[in-house]
């Protein structure tokens, strides 16, 4: 078991550990593991990243919303359990969060967001959460931060199988299968996931009851989704690999109502398909990465689930990217990339629209001395629809002593207008929109030793020309306008503490705390739905074959109106929820293990919600089996 927890521990450390590492050790590592988006894992300079391993993800296996909510510094707003859900870093918007799949930005062309409940990442090998802007590398939307899911390929002789199944209250079942095998030449990874729930939990607000005095139920919340993924890699020779990633997803959900309207009939279907080819050649001082990807997305929205009529939106995207790096020596490298994308989108009310964009970036990364690393990158995008400002990033890591490190990152970032914002029907789209822009500074301090990792970041960000849907004269129509400016100031704090009590016993605690002050520049009011304090933690304990964890999420009060009316009707109260799990490890031998765990979610039956009048489930249970072979 020690090995498992060590892995977990080092997993947590990895993102800070790599910044100490020299390039050659990274290169050596990458010859065995092929990570499509190795940049976010290894080369981020001056910013805080949080790595989530599969071990952490299975504690919150229900959906990606829960994984992000309980394990990262990111605030997630949703419309009821399983409903539309989106991540917001540092008080920014859902459109200011970039979601990356193997290094490819997958935010929708239609609304510029990625719904966390219309994506299954349970078979991903890791999720890296990068706080702060990253538009140079990750393009539009990487203003507040980005969430990266990676499928890794291993070029060594191996054979792994990972099976996970869970079942619990409200017929909620979350399952996945992940298998990988390979040799020095070949690497194959297969993943499949099935998640289902009737999701008909009681809405435990004592003020809203039916005629009989019973709680109302979430009676239109049913969901089911299926995901399949395949990753293939072939290594021609050391440093010369060709890989292919493909994934498909279908989600079928009903959208539940709220306490004043429990009866709804809305239904939503998502179908996404993504393909990516990567050819990587690294020889002598040169590294070439050639990527091409083809992505499709479609949603169908049914006002009435019993009716065949629906609204839809569709998009397809081609992407070509050539990335070239020249290593002057072990410590310095010059990187440049060219990116071309062709995006086509339409809805039942918007005729097909095509957007083409080209981008060119150049960057330099080096060590001044052994303990001082820095990078400078510049990017310019040319877009067929509007002018995109050039963006830059300057980052540096300075190691004070072995265990202490100072980080600084200064960047500018952007978010381009979406299909809906430009072309919304009834003349409500606005073709005069320009991209949202941001400038930001991150100043960080990190510390690690054998049992403790600390990461803190002070951030300041200014987001300009924010696109806001605004009612027009007569209030019958709304139009998006580049209207607002906001400032975002705060602190992110991460700690991981590991203590081995004896040979068979250990305790590990991980916490995230985010203090965010997001203000509208004109009104000086707080931005809506932004909690001042956000805290989550997990404490894992193991004694021999017995495991236990306690997990918690706390969020302070949020305002729902822009004038910050402090009335119970227009705020969401702060809350603290606890989850508890206890398990038995039936065997563990090297990478093989069988773990069965019983979890109690929302132990104290806390009434809490992330949108107006939509309570989350009260106390509920689930049991899961986690089998690795």
């Amino acid at each position: 078991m020690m090995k498992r927890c060590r892995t977990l521990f080092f997993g947590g450390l990895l993102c800070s550990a790599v910044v100490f590492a020299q390039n050659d050790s990274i290169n050596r590592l990458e010859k065995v593991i092929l990570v499509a988006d190795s940049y976010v894992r290894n080369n981020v300079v001056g910013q805080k990243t949080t790595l989530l391993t599969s071990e952490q993800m299975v504690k919150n296996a229900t959906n990606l919303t829960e994984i992000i909510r309980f394990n990262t510094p990111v605030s997630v707003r949703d419309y009821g359990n399983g409903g539309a859900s989106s991540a917001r870093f540092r008080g920014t918007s859902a459109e200011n969060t970039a979601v990356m799949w193997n290094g490819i930005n997958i935010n929708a062309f239609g609304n510029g967001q990625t719904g966390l409940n219309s994506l299954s990442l349970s078979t991903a090998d890791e999720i890296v959460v990068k706080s702060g802007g990253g538009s140079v590398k990750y393009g539009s939307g990487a203003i507040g931060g980005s969430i990266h899911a990676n499928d890794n390929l291993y070029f060594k002789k191996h054979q792994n199988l990972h099976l996970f199944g869970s079942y619990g209250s409200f017929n909620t079942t979350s399952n996945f299968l992940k298998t990988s095998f390979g040799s020095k030449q070949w690497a194959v990874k297969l993943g499949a996931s099935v998640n289902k729930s009737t999701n008909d939990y009681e809405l435990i607000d004592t003020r809203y009851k039916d005629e009989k005095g019973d709680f109302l139920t979430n009676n239109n919340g049913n969901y089911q989704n299926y995901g399949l993924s395949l990753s293939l890699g072939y290594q021609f020779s050391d440093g010369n690999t060709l890989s292919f990633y493909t994934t498909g997803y279908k989600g079928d959900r009903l959208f539940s109502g709220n306490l004043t309207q429990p009866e709804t009939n809305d239904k939503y279907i998502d179908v996404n398909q993504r393909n990516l080819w990567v050819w990587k050649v690294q020889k002598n001082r040169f590294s070439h990465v050639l990527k091409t990807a083809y992505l499709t997305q479609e949603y169908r929205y049914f006002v009435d689930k019993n009716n065949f009529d629906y609204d839809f939106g569709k998009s397809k995207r081609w992407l070509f990217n050539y990335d070239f790096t020249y290593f002057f020596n072990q410590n310095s490298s010059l990187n440049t990339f060219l990116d071309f994308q062709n995006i086509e989108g339409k809805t039942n009310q918007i005729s097909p629209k095509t957007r083409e964009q080209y981008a060119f970036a150049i960057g330099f990364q080096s060590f001044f001395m052994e303990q001082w690393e820095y990078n400078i990158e510049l990017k310019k995008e040319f877009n067929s629809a509007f002018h995109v400002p050039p963006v830059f990033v300057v980052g540096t890591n300075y190691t004070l002593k072995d265990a202490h490190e100072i980080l600084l990152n200064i960047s500018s970032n952007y978010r381009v207008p979406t299909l809906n914002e430009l072309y919304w029907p009834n003349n409500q789209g606005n073709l005069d929109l320009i991209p949202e822009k941001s400038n930001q500074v991150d100043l960080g301090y990190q510390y690690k030793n054998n049992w403790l990792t600390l990461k803190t970041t002070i951030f300041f960000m200014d987001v300009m020309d924010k696109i806001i849907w605004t009612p027009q004269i007569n209030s019958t129509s709304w139009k998006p306008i580049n209207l607002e400016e906001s400032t975002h100031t705060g602190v992110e704090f991460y700690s991981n503490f590991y203590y081995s009590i004896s040979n068979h016993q250990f305790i590990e605690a991980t916490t995230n705390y985010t203090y965010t002050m997001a203000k509208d520049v004109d009104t000086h009011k707080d931005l809506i739905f932004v909690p001042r304090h956000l805290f989550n933690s997990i404490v894992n304990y193991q004694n021999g074959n017995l495991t236990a964890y306690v997990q918690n999420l706390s969020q302070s009060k949020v305002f729902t109106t822009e004038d910050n009316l402090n009335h119970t009707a227009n705020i969401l109260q702060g809350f603290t929820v606890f989850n508890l799990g206890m398990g038995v490890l039936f065997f563990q031998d090297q990478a093989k293990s069988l773990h069965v765990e019983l979890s109690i979610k929302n132990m104290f039956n806390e009434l809490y919600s992330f949108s107006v009048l939509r309570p989350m489930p009260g106390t509920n249970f689930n049991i899961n089996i986690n089998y690795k072979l």
Partner: protein
Amino acid sequence: MYKQLIILLVVVFSLVSCHQDSITLVERDYTTGILISGEGSGAGTGSVTYLSSDQSAKHQFIYLSANGVQLGTFLQSIAFSEISAYIIVDNTNTISVVDKSSFIKTGEIKEDLKTPRFMTVIGEKGYVTNWGDPYNTTDDFIAVVDLSNNKVEKTISVGNGPERIISKGNKLYVSHKGAYGTNNIISIIDTLSDSVSEIKVEDNPDELFFNSHDNLVVLSEGNTIYNPTDWSIEGHTVGAIQTIDVTSNTVISSLPFKEGEHPSLMVFDAGEIYYYAEGKVFKINENDEVLSATVLIAQNLYGMDVKYGRLYGVEPNYTAQSSFYVFDLETQEQTFTTKVALGASKIYLRD
């Protein structure tokens, strides 16, 4: 180091300590004064704001403070009987019945309504316009509610998109704004026989009232025609204030607006018609034969009313509290403003 961590944990827990929000119920008398209904939005539900006649007292969320629970979204309109107020929330297909003075809930009309919009009361019966499915142009109806038991006793089928409803004697007059589409009729319903007849007016008729000659005056907004491929504006049909003789059911006068100008509000007070179009309020006499060219008040409004020489208006905000204004009609000056319900849309002046 553990110690610091533990201290931090404690601090954070206390910062975000949890408490359920409970409302202290209050009983107030709202018999006189001004009620402003707000539609609500994603930021909060529909709500009602009370202002005393002299605007010295204001109470927000009066349904919530009387009942401890909130209304749904979107609060469309309120109708009044002798003793009750009927709060119509169209999205939830519900009419909440409250005591007219205290706003304490006394009942609910839930069954057999579908996208209810407006209601009028004749004796013991309530008549509610319903869009049905707003996309369906053939399922629209008037629900007849027995107010003694709050049950829909029957429905009367009408044309697409019935909106405002007023009564005179045993007859109902309904403007058909056309729901999500467009329409151009006034339905006249004889409540004794349930027979329906129609009068054609300009496109998208909305507000209507009887003038001092007992003629029906209707405000039609006119329609905007979009190109269905690129959603550019292809043209407009004209809006108009039209007067209908209800004995012969014929349009006897028609005052058209300029092409592209779409009026949206109209009220009648002491022989004068006050109407609102595109950010401006105008006034004409009920006997005038042309529209006015003189701007009375320039202000964006979504709801308005006029009484005792004052014009009351609301400018809605869907992400914050809305603005309520009082104008002195003599001086045309704004004399009072305050913040009211989210998405404020209707003003009800009580005696």
